[in-house]
């Protein structure tokens, strides 16, 4: 019997990240721009998606992958009702979507008919930040009622973002939300981050957000 030490130095997320690479390749081959939409519960992910679909219809075809912790189809049903393909991925209680789950979701979407694929991640500001999916852009929806301290309390999710949407700005007159303080924290974590201030209720700011998306979507 002999004992010895074996040096490994292997990233624990490697297996996930390799599948994320494959997801990216699949999206690229189909000419689909993919976004990973993250937020805390109640920030307005589904209403933002529905409003986005409404603004981009009919010239841009959008597919949605809904991540939920339990087999409820409320969100997916709303997207289907808006006339776009949606698939529901039940994470079985897990707090986030990972790359193999998105792989399953992509298999159920008619990718070749799509221009844009939106993943609605599980409502959570911690875990989704750790799992790459293979999408082209990480987008976070922060909402005014959540408070202006969120970048300071959940720094990791802000660091990996490509776009920030600040939703429910119609509530600013009623809530103590210091936009300067909030955006200062964001700037510290992610300098120059592309940011849209919107209201999914009134539609304010959606012109700028959907223009950004139009610029990213490669029309075949």
């Amino acid at each position, binding site marked *: *019997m002999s004992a010895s030490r*074996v040096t*490994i130095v292997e990233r*624990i997320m490697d297996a*996930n990240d390799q599948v994320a690479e494959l997801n990216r390749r699949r999206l690229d081959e189909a000419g689909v721009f993919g976004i990973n939409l993250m937020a805390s519960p109640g920030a307005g992910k589904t209403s933002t998606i529905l409003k986005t679909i409404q603004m981009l219809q009919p010239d841009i075809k959008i597919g949605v992958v809904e991540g939920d912790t339990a087999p409820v189809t409320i969100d997916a049903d709303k997207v289907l009702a808006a006339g776009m393909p949606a698939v529901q991925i039940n994470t079985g209680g*897990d707090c986030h979507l990972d790359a193999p789950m998105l792989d399953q979701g992509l298999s159920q979407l008619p990718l070749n008919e799509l221009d844009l694929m939106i993943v609605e991640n599980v409502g959570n500001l911690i875990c989704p930040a750790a799992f790459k999916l293979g999408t082209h852009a990480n987008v976070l929806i922060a909402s005014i009622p959540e408070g202006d301290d969120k970048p300071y309390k959940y*720094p*990791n999710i802000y660091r990996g973002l490509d776009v920030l949407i600040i939703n429910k700005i119609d509530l600013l007159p009623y809530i103590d939300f210091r936009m300067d303080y909030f955006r200062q924290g964001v700037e*510290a974590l992610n300098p120059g981050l592309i940011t849209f201030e919107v209201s999914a209720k009134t539609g304010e700011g959606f012109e700028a957000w959907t223009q950004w998306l139009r610029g990213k979507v490669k029309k075949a």
Partner: protein
Amino acid sequence: MHELSITENILEIATRNGARAGASRITDITLVIGDLSSIVDDSVQFYWDMISQGTLAEGARLHFRRVPARVHCQSCAHEFELAGQLNPCPECGSLSLDILSGDEFYVDSIEIEKKE
């Protein structure tokens, strides 16, 4: 709470490398985890005790080597540690910061036994 899938990855990495090195048993596993990764050591240990049974790594001790989240202030060059939250530089109050460490998340090494 994604420690179960994390722990499964750790088991896979350890047993694959252990088998390749000809191990008859893996006795220790050293993990390097930055303080910015939201992982709870006790939770990993809990799942580990369940899922490592019947594998090459059954009963292996997990060692968590924690790496603090160190940041460098761009304004005054002061270096300090973040305790989970984003805080301004304690010296000058600036929020222009570079994060130097704390994102580490890997299996560093394993200790194995071999039958000669």
